[in-house]
């Protein structure tokens, strides 16, 4: 690899932005700031972005690392089909979502972060990246236990083919062999 999949970074950035929007919104509502409608919006926007961005997509090259417990989110996000698969949609969605956040101080940071995430997603979309769900491993992905243990031997033990083993009458020298133990006549 080394070839950047921008979506991976956009995803981290967007998730962070979602959390920041959420936090900013809570502060705005709890502190009873003026324009707290925008704060309430910020909470909703933050939650939505977090839900959308929590499940990591599958990487094109290399192993994909899931976030803890992301499977149910994956299923949810997957069900929206092209809307969630396509990164152009996400880029424009995040750009649109972030705008109202710019109206109150508490959500400004979240707004800018989400805007940056939107730009990175745009770069990903231009490069043709897509969101693919990470689905559970099949059992075959695990290295199988040596089949040879389960079946009776298919092959004879390793030794040269029979023709080579057979003693050749033409070549007496090679046909002879040395006794491993000295052979003596029976003395008794």
């Amino acid at each position, binding site marked *: 690899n*080394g070839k950047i999949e921008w979506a991976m*970074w956009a995803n981290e950035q967007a998730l962070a932005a979602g959390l920041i929007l959420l936090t900013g919104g809570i502060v705005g509502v709890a502190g009873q700031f*003026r324009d707290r409608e925008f704060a309430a919006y910020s909470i909703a926007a933050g939650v939505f972005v977090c839900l959308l961005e929590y499940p990591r997509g599958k990487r094109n090259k290399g192993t994909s690392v899931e976030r803890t417990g992301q499977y149910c989110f994956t299923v949810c996000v997957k069900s929206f089909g092209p809307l969630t698969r396509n990164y152009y949609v996400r880029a424009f969605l995040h750009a649109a979502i972030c705008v109202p956040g710019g109206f*109150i*101080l508490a959500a400004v*940071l979240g707004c800018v972060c989400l805007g940056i995430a939107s730009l990175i997603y745009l770069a990903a979309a231009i490069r043709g990246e897509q969101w693919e769900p990470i689905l559970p491993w099949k059992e075959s992905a695990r290295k199988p236990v040596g089949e040879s243990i389960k079946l009776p031997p298919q092959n004879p033990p*390793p030794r040269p083919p029979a023709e080579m083993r057979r003693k050749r009458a033409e070549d007496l020298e090679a046909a002879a062999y040395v006794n491993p133990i000295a052979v003596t006549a029976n003395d008794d």
Partner: protein
Amino acid sequence: MTSSWLDLQVVWMAINIFLFLWFYFFYDLGDQFFYTRHILGSALAWARAPAAVLNFNCLLILLPVCRNLLSLIRGSFMCCGRTMRKQLDKNISFHKLVAYMIGLMTAVHTIAHFLNVEWYYNSRLGKYDDLSMALSSLDDSGNTTFLNPIRSTTTTPTLLVFTSVAGITGVIITLSLILIITSSMEVIRRSYFEVFWFTHHLFIVFFAGLVIHGAGRIVRSQTTTNPLHNATFCKDRIDDWGKIQECPVPQFAGGFPQTWMWVIGPMILYVCERLLRFIRYMQTVKYRKIVIRPSKVLELQLVKNGFKMDVGQYVFLNCPAISQLEWHPFTMTSAPEEDFFSVHIRSVGDWTQKLISIVEQLPEGAEGPKMGVDGPFGTASEDVFDYEVAMLVGAGIGVTPFASILKSIWYKFKDSNPKLRTRKIYFYWLCRETHAFEWFADLLQLLEREMEERGMGSFLTYKLYLTGWDQSHANHVMVHADADTDVVTGLKQKTNYGRPNWDKEFEQVRKENPTSVVGTFLCGPAVLATVLSKKCVKYTDVDPRKTKFYFNKENF
């Protein structure tokens, strides 16, 4: 987790807590902030306490990544024992810990200031009591000074933030911090190094903004006037301010910006560090020899002016032909006694793969690709020479520093180096398979031959444990069991299948060395460390004249 690493974390956290509490109460109880608190409440203290912790941690964050400087310090602390040196080796872990604290404190600081701005805003518009109104009306004109930084009644909190130094720098540096953090997540860092490295340089923006962040001096306290203005007395006599002697108009001023005092030192040190790395990078590195070992392991023997190493250390290599930015660490496999230093490189990722393919395509006798070398780094594992009897355990890739150690021990033994007390070595090599470590097996064979030539065949006893054997291995062994050398690696002493029975091994060492002090060293997984340290305790005799085992928690 070694205890010195734990100690460092405890001390660091204690300082953080102390700073937080000290400054919290400074702002929450100090008389000079009485009027400020009237408008802001405890949000003032909640903003200033994290600021102090931030100053401290921004000071610290640059230090662990100054690897050259740390090496220099470590050098001068050689005599003070291993504990200090081990602390310095946990650099990246500490850097991350400090970074998390910076992130957390930034969040608290920012939220508290959001509240402060909102309270100041409301106060300016007269939404609070008379005292707040009076305080907020104080202007920076004639003989009054302002407390409330919001001077206009037509601005908004957002506008204030973007028209003040503190606000603009605050937003910029917080954004930089967020971008640094998201691009440093493990997924990004390991896969897209360029993104991580380039974005991380936003720390320059971070520190620049941080230093001027307090220049606006908008956190204000009451100054001492002559005559004094006693807030507790005068707070209920707003209409008399300036009219009676006890209550002249209260004056306010902002605190002198202090952050630069905390961070200027580390910033200078870091610049020196980068300069040093650049100088080292520019130094010529020549190839003495390039060897392609079995299983595509690349051995590079390099020479660099003034390069001095100790056993078990590592270097960072940079190859501009592959990547201008990436520096990769490799444990050195040569001994300090040799007039070159060597690394054995396996294909484990993109960079190593590219390096191996470049070298494979080199014409005969050509010079290798230009290489930058930074280092050496790492704790020198010198203790290994102090023990009469040494038990060395290398698991998997952990066997690499032992190449350096075994060679050095043998050189010292041949030269009768007084530093070497070792008379007997037991070496245990554990791995799933010897693939990519044939070079190490060759080294063991070479040492074995040399020792036998000198009649010192018993100096080194080694055993290889293949912990990942399967049926086909066993079949192969059964057919060739009569051969004198082991078929898998050609080692004289037979390969064992499965994990070692440590009780048997310790018993054997004890039997063969009834009165010695045995040092046990491990380079391998932490689980094994627990096992070995327990065995060391179990087999150490209470009788001081008998065998004693010491487990060295040295992490090579």
